[in-house]
């Protein structure tokens, strides 16, 4: 077995041993969707949402929530802990670069978030009759870019905070606005025009719009995809620029 494969194997075992992390990433977004779906009026078409039901709109929102949970809430303390506890340092004295440990964690968090997204879509379809994404390729691209921004934002949080404690605090501070931007409280499509105009240019606002359009069957606006991609690129650059190995 190659060294990177061994790292990935060990880290997936460790990831599976974190029940709370798994709950928030994999279970919670679907749970939220189910709770909202239990409210009868949310299952009625609404004129404010262009004839869509609230539950229809919340499927992409919950998908985005899974990505944010993984990237912004779960990932940063793990990376920061590996740094603070000297695990990266120990690894850097072996032929394997400590970066492979970070990469494994990022891949695993992304995989868990993707699994969670599929679960949300499946439950939406089976339980609440929410149509599957009308434009799967556009949906997938928006999901990929949104996930990338979430993971990059989390990595940036780790990069700019010196300790695990600080990482957790800053992670939470970033987490709540991220949920707002994604439309967890008010879907981006239902936000007042001026607010939406701003939110659309922020990381998860743009991703939320893109996912929503792809869910409706259209190829997402290049503006939304572009804004999400630019944020992902900026955040990746920031994380790489400021990350400290010890």
């Amino acid at each position, binding site marked *: 077995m190659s060294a990177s494969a*061994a790292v990935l194997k060990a880290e997936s075992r460790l990831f599976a041993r974190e029940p709370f992390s798994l709950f928030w990433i994999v279970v919670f977004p679907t749970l939220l969707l189910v709770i909202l779906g239990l409210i009868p009026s949310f299952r009625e078409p609404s004129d404010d949402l262009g004839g869509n039901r609230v539950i229809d709109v919340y499927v992409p929102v919950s998908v985005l929530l899974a990505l944010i949970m993984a990237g912004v809430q779960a990932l940063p303390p793990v990376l920061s802990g590996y740094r603070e506890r*000297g695990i990266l*340092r120990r690894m850097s*004295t072996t*032929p394997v670069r400590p970066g492979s440990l970070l990469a494994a964690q990022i891949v695993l968090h992304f995989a868990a978030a993707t699994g969670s997204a599929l679960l949300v879509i499946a439950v939406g379809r089976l339980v609440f009759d929410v149509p599957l994404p009308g434009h799967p390729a556009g949906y997938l691209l928006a999901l990929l870019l949104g996930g990338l921004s979430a993971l990059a934002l989390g990595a940036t949080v780790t990069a700019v905070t010196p300790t695990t404690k600080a990482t957790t605090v800053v992670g939470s501070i970033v987490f709540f606005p991220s949920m707002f931007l994604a439309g967890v409280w008010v879907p981006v499509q239902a936000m007042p025009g001026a607010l939406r105009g701003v939110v659309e240019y922020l990381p998860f606002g743009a991703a939320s719009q893109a996912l929503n359009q792809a869910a409706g069957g259209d190829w997402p606006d290049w503006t939304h995809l572009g804004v999400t991609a630019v944020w992902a690129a900026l955040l990746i650059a920031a994380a790489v620029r400021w990350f400290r190995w010890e």
Partner: protein
Amino acid sequence: MSIVEVRGLRKAYGGRPVVDDVSFEVEEGEIFGILGPNGAGKTTAVECVEGLRVPDAGVVRVAGLEPRRERERLTGILGVQLQESELQEKLSVREALELYSAFYPEPADWRGLAERLGLVEKLGTRFGRLSGGQKQRLFIALALIGNPRVVVLDELTTGLDPRARRDTWTLIEEVRDAGVTVLLVTHFMEEAQRLCDRIAVFKRGRVAALDTPAGLIRRSAGGTVISFDPSRPLDDGDLDALPDAQSVESRNGRVTLHGTDATVNAVISLLARRQITAHQLRVSDATLDDAFLELTEDREN
């Protein structure tokens, strides 16, 4: 042939020199000790050897490799036990051993290592649940798992009980006998005296002395220790006049002198002359402890 070469090594933090013009060479197949009080720059020096720190000046070579630039090749031949590091909390001992074996092209048999380090019963235990001594033994195993040519052990037996410490010493001697060069950072004198072929004594970032343990003891002026309970008090003037006496100490009526063979003879004739009986007379060789204290004491104070 020297396998580790350090010449003119300097490293400062915030303008304060921590390692200041340190040079030493470690011969292939020896156990080389680095001894010194806390803050003497021992760990910083070996971290430059491991390639974890960039020296401000000086040359470091391990088997001819430059630790920072030739990292890839260095990590393949250098095993490391760090003073402070941990593993993933929920990784079991077996998983850790398997994981680290996978990092090296020709790893040692991890089962054998686990057996020699008394970890067999702990294979299924997660790192976070191990005691300090068990963690330490696991780290020793991980330092040896890649079949290194050189192994750096920083505070090898800290946290081990006396029995585990002795077992670990035997293991390290076996490792050396198998041809591995050992660079050992320690502040246990007994450990240094028992294991090391040669020792560099660090003091304030510099090498204060470099010799075999026996050489260090011989070098220190008070190589012979004489102690006794005189039947009646001795005159201070008489004691101070003894030849080669480095230090004279009276405590609870017991006199302790550091000196040489000449001092021993002079003490005996002095006692005879004054007709004083010496109870519990002991003459012993100074230990590495004594030599260490003398080498690292601050004369300025």
